[in-house]
């Protein structure tokens, strides 16, 4: 193809504009804002590291950070594991398997707002399904779940895993179907049981995909917002507030734009550090000899 040198940039015009207007531009703006005090009325005032200092000495911020790390630490491996489990289930060659795959993926395409209500009922302390079952089984004082500071965050994790596991399932399924059949035949000739085949063939062959799923899920975990917004609003007493919701609250409920931008940058920093650690340890377990 022959074309003038500027032609490719015409194709990229919307994308370049979009990067400036909706992602990289705001990212830079957010960075600058994080050094200012601004409540949206008068002009922003430069206060240096003031916001960061305030965050790091705020008890609530540390609690929110702890919540975030706990959420990420449970949600990420759980979603990856459940996703792999579902993928193994629907990788069987059976009639109607596409139907089951469809059902398993259903939560992933639905609106969180719409399913929140049912989950609220499932975990409701007095009329809820789970506590009804627990009481029937003989528990005299079952947990209050969403209304209890010790359990609210974990309920959000459970609902999120249910909602998100379909995505890793699909990716793992593609990975499972890409494993060459002759590897299993060779293993069987050597007398490997099904469990051995899974452990010594399937899992190692899946490690590159697992790493990919892990990273995608990790980013997902660091931006969890909707489930908090619709189920607990961070409560009770900030017990289920994670960083994305904290940022939203400070910006759009307390109108502290500069402060919330600083929190956003700390979120980005934490997410990048954890991603970096994962890449550091990648070669320890990811199988690559192609």
């Amino acid at each position, binding site marked *: 193809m022959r074309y003038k040198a500027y032609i490719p940039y015409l194709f990229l015009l*919307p994308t370049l504009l979009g990067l400036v207007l909706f992602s990289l531009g705001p990212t830079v703006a957010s960075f600058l804002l994080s050094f200012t005090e601004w409540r949206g009325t008068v002009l922003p005032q430069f206060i240096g590291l003031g916001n960061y200092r305030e965050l790091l000495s705020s008890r609530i911020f540390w609690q929110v950070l702890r919540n975030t790390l706990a959420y990420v630490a449970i949600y990420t491996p759980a979603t990856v594991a459940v996703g792999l489990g579902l993928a193994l289930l629907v990788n069987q060659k059976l009639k109607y398997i596409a139907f089951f795959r469809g059902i398993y993926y259903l939560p992933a395409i639905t609106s969180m707002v719409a399913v929140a209500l049912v989950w609220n009922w499932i975990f409701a302390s007095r009329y809820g399904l789970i506590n009804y079952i627990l009481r029937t089984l003989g528990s005299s004082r079952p947990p209050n779940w969403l209304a209890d500071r010790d359990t609210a965050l974990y309920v959000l994790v459970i609902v999120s895993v249910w909602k998100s596991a379909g995505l890793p399932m699909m990716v793992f399924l593609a990975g499972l179907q890409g494993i060459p059949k002759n590897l299993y035949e060779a293993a069987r000739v050597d007398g490997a049981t099904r469990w051995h085949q899974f452990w010594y063939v399937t899992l190692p062959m899946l490690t590159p995909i697992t790493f990919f799923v892990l990273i995608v899920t990790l980013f997902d975990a660091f931006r969890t917002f909707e489930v908090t917004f619709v189920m607990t609003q961070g409560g009770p007493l900030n017990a289920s507030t994670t960083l994305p919701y904290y940022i939203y609250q400070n910006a759009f409920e307390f109108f502290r734009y500069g402060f919330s931008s600083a929190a956003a940058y700390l979120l980005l920093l934490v997410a990048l550090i954890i991603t970096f650690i994962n890449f550091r340890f990648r070669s320890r377990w990811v199988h690559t000899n192609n």
Partner: protein
Amino acid sequence: MRSQSDIYVPHRHTKQPIKLVLQYALLAIVAFLMAFPFLWMVLTTFKTSGNIFRLPPSLIPDKLFGEDPFGNYRLLFSDYNFLRYALNTFVVATLAALGQIITCSLAAFAFARLTFKGSRVIFGLLLATLVLPIEVTIVPEYLIALLVYEPALQAIGLRWIDSLAPLIVPSFFVGATGTFLLREFFSTIPRDLEEAAVIDGASVFAIYRRIFLPLATPALITLFLLAFITNWNDLLRAVLYIKSPNLRTLPIGLALFQDEYATQWDLLLAGSVVTILPLIIVYIFMQKYIVEGIATTGIK
């Protein structure tokens, strides 16, 4: 994509009936767990209010035997504006998805076939945006909207804040996932196909328009559907930008409806069903395309 026969089949003892029963039993139990909230939701919308919070939970949709079995759904549309919300959501999701296939296919074509300075840097930046949580960009985005777009548009009699525009327009500008997906697809198109057109003197745009777009139809459908689903469910931008009741989309309409009528569960759950059902229908008919897109990019 591999053909069906290439797919690894763990064991071929399909003639063991007990094993088969166990396999299906396990599949069905997991399916029940995954689908339970949906089943319960639909069931409850057909219960009379006295029957909803009964313990042990009642499985009987007694309203179905009454005078007005679909009363909850009728009320939503006649008294509570849900038809309007659904229409707004449909407009937002369709236009945003359209924006994505235009923008992403243009960019993907440039990345897959054209050589230019900065190609790798721009592609790298685009992928880097996947890492950015929306929380990092949404505050400045909102402030820029408030201070720049809104006054500028008001000068010519239009609005940005409290309009559907901020839910639609960003999709016309950037889409990292979609660009990535389509670039992968365009790269698989053999070069011979375009060479004939080049000899005939077709312009670059004509090659994009007449060769690449038609060949990429399945990938474009995939991208359209993924973007449609994402935008149908989008809550954050709707929370920030939409103020007028008439402009609400289903997710924000439903969230506010839940705050307002917290006690009328059957009605609220009917609202949930209305929000979810269109997507489920789209999903059932278009499953093949959606699955392919997710398997390729791993990203919603």
